[in-house]
């Protein structure tokens, strides 16, 4: 943004719209909303240049609650709308709010393409492993055996792993956070600072249809043991600094080691291979959180705009000349009457 107008100082309150928030009491969405509203004043962006775009689902009501521009679109298609918005006005700061069903089921195709194109935007995927707004059916991230109104005997299909999907699609920024965790604003800031499509999976608790589905790593008593918060250039340590993650070189897989093991990995967000391993650590491992992967690349809208400018260079926008192009001929006078 090259606007000379200074960005006014704001507080979280300035980013909250006057609309009544209509999520279920206790929904994790409230915590994410608060985290975003608390983060915005620190990002040096203007409210009028900020656009929240969503699809359909509980999370997709999010834009109504932000005192910015907002577009609540149709199911799964928010990335496509965002692409048009950003190509039309690259100065806008675009946030996409989506859920596991919205982004990975009906909108899987658009999620893949916005990531591979690397449109400059922040994608916050609220993963609650369930369809909330339609009353509790299993979702593409639900674990095998999830009992729901549509799968009364348990789901049989294996879930998609959102961050693995993002990496596979060519994402250049992949991060994870937890709705109620104090680190979420830091993750959001990192996502915003990254130029390109920043993919953030937020574990979000649905109190009504899938309560405590992430309790195995979010509950206070297991958090230390089950959360690995990654920091650039820092050792991959967890369990209060007692354990670490190292590479099992023979199996080309990760392993849990003691903290003083010299093989404990240093987090290099640019290491794509390790990122693939981090996002899919099996049972017995902690949940990798924070910025898992970041390796900037040119953004889609910049490439398009540069190419448009290069192609237009030196060519006047002469409409009369355009319509008169090609092989033409002159009729001097009417040859004969009908």
């Amino acid at each position, binding site marked *: 943004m090259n606007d000379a107008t200074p960005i006014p100082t704001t507080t979280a309150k300035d980013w909250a*719209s006057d*609309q009544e928030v209509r999520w279920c009491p206790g929904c994790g969405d409230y915590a994410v909303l608060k985290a975003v509203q608390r983060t915005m004043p620190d990002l040096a962006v*203007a*409210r*009028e*240049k900020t656009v929240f*775009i969503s699809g359909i689902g509980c999370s997709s009501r999010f*834009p*109504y609650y932000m*005192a910015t*521009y*907002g*577009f*609540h*679109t*149709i199911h799964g*298609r928010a*990335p*496509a*709308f*965002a*692409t*048009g*918005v*950003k*190509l*039309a*006005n690259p*100065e*806008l700061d675009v946030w996409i709010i989506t859920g596991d069903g919205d982004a990975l089921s009906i909108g899987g*195709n*658009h999620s*893949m*393409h916005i990531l591979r194109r690397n449109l400059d935007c922040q994608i916050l995927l609220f993963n609650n492993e369930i369809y909330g707004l339609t009353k509790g059916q299993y979702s593409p991230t639900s674990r095998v055996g999830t009992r729901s109104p549509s799968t009364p005997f348990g789901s049989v299909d294996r879930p998609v792993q959102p961050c693995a999907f993002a990496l596979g699609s060519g994402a250049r920024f992949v991060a994870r956070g937890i709705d109620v965790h104090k680190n979420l604003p830091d993750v959001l800031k990192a996502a915003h600072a990254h130029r390109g499509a920043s993919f953030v999976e937020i574990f979000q608790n649905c109190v009504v249809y899938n309560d405590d589905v992430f309790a195995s790593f979010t509950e206070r008593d297991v958090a230390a043991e089950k959360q690995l918060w990654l920091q650039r250039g820092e050792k991959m340590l967890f369990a209060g600094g007692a354990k670490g993650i190292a590479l099992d070189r023979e199996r080309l897989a990760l392993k849990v080691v003691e903290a003083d093991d010299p093989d404990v990995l240093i987090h290099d967000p640019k290491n794509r291979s390790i990122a693939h391993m981090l996002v899919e650590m099996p049972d017995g491992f902690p949940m990798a959180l924070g910025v898992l992967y970041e390796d900037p690349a040119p953004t889609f809208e910049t490439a*398009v705009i540069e190419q*448009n*400018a290069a*192609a*237009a260079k030196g*060519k*006047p*926008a002469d*409409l*009369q000349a*355009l*319509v*008169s*192009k*090609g*092989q*033409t*001929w*002159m*009729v*001097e006078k*009417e*040859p*004969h*009457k*009908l």
Partner: protein
Amino acid sequence: MATATHQLTEKEATAHPPAEAVVVRFAGDSGDGMQLTGGQFTLSTALAGNDLATFPDFPAEIRAPQGTTFGVSAFQINFGSTAIETAGDQPDVLIAMNPAALKMNADQVREGGLIIADEGEFSARNLAKAGYEANPLEDSSLAKWQVVHFNISQLTLDSVKPFGLGNKEALRCKNMWTLGLALWMFDRDRQPIVDWLKVKFAKAPELAEANIAALNAGHAYGETTEMGAPFKQHHLAAAPAEPGLYRTVTGAESLALGLVAGCQLAGVNMFFGSYPITPASPLLHHLARLKEFGITTFQAEDEIAAICAAIGASYAGQLGITSSSGPGIALKTEALGLAVMTELPLIVVNSQRGGPSTGLPTKTEQSDLYQAVYGRNADSPVPVISARSPADAFDCAIEACRIATHYMTPVMLLTDGYIANAAEPWKVPDMSGYAPFPVSFFDTPPAEGEQVMPYARGDGLARPWIKPGTPGLEHRIGGIEKAPGTGNIDYSPAAHQEMTDTRFAKVLGIANDIPDQDICIGREGADLVVVGWGSTFGPIHQAVRRALAQGKDVAHVHVRHIWPAPKNLGDLLKGFNHVLVPEMNMGQYKTLLRDQYLVDAQSLTKVSGHPFRIAEIAAAIDKALS
């Protein structure tokens, strides 16, 4: 040496003199370059000052197996010294490059017409592939036509021998040989084609030279070979035309130009989101090259993303346009509903093709009218405009831009496969004659204590266009029903009723801002009116003109604004005794007219993938009047 199977006398041969217009059909294998031949023949025809209309008729397969009937590609052109509005009912001349091309096209040639065949391709194998038991050039099965055949393949090989091309490459010059012959037949200048070949093969000069040699050889063959009566040179005088600068355009070209012009007149940049689909893709190809006009083209991952990105661009302050054909439009429909709901400008171009489903991808039809007018969930009115010809598509595109931006509404612009691919001469418009309709973005923040009103109503019930980035006007829009004025979520019965009524009234109100319906020819209140829309204009117009010349009491009404219709349309139609609606579907516009005006409209339908013939409409006129 050429041999005419049936030598006709001079008198017989000129019994049906193509005095004013000639219909020529080039037909060959899809790899024979017939579309290219036809295109260049079209250009030379235009440069000679003849009026013309073309009909490219090609298979859906890019290269169907050689020599098969389903791989036949044809290009028909009707040209003459009079006003030409159709590609012609029946070819006067058929140039058949192989047995399959003859098989598929001979029956369309008028009795006594001329068939030129490349006997070099009439091998036993090719005859079998085309389903001929005996060589039709050697029996009497083609007796009702004049048939001339010679070995075009060999003559081409001979003519390009000096250039040392391989056999396959040398044979690819066959189409230029044929074109040379056609240019001789109609006394045409070869120079524009020579210039074009030099540009086309700039990187392979030997190919340019070989093709030019083939072109010249074909021309010389016509000039020097005595083939007798059927094979003589024709000269058609230039057609009457208003003085001015002319060029040829296809519908896809003029549509692209019209959209560019519309955006320039509106003073907005264009965002064109599209996904490849036949026959709509050429529009994307044309626009992708015009970046200097502030155009962004985006080949999306699918039809849905294409329209969604276009809506996103409109939301951000450009004019979003998307383009497809029936099946793609079906995919876009949910997003189109969002554009109706959020009241954003958008243009959806539908190049209609035969359906349902994949249907006939390369063949024309008008069967998406219901889809355009009625084809969405809920009450979601969208203005619908339909182009009647390649040249008319230019003005229709400008009108679509005007309505979309002025009324903050999506607009459906209908064209079809025939218009998209067909070419006609076009008098280059004087752009200074088009009144600009600049858009204005609303940027006045509300007074202290007042709310932003994105759904306030202005002229024609349009809502303000507020670009994100405008300070003090931050607001949220979406697909959920909203409160009038503020646009805040509001499911209340009163809000939904009022918003539905308003959206409906806004679109219907556009009828106050379009010209009254006129009569093309014939008198108001005649015994019969033939009502058309879209690409049936040409054959209907010609049929009605002929009927009028025969003293019949007929009129022709052609409707551009399908929805909303011109205000006087109902009263106008009720003044005629009979209403006949020819259309390339099973009677969709007929149903709409009956629904809207309770008129006893009768259908003439055709869904063969080919445009109407004048004779078919003429017969229906006679039947309606009897």
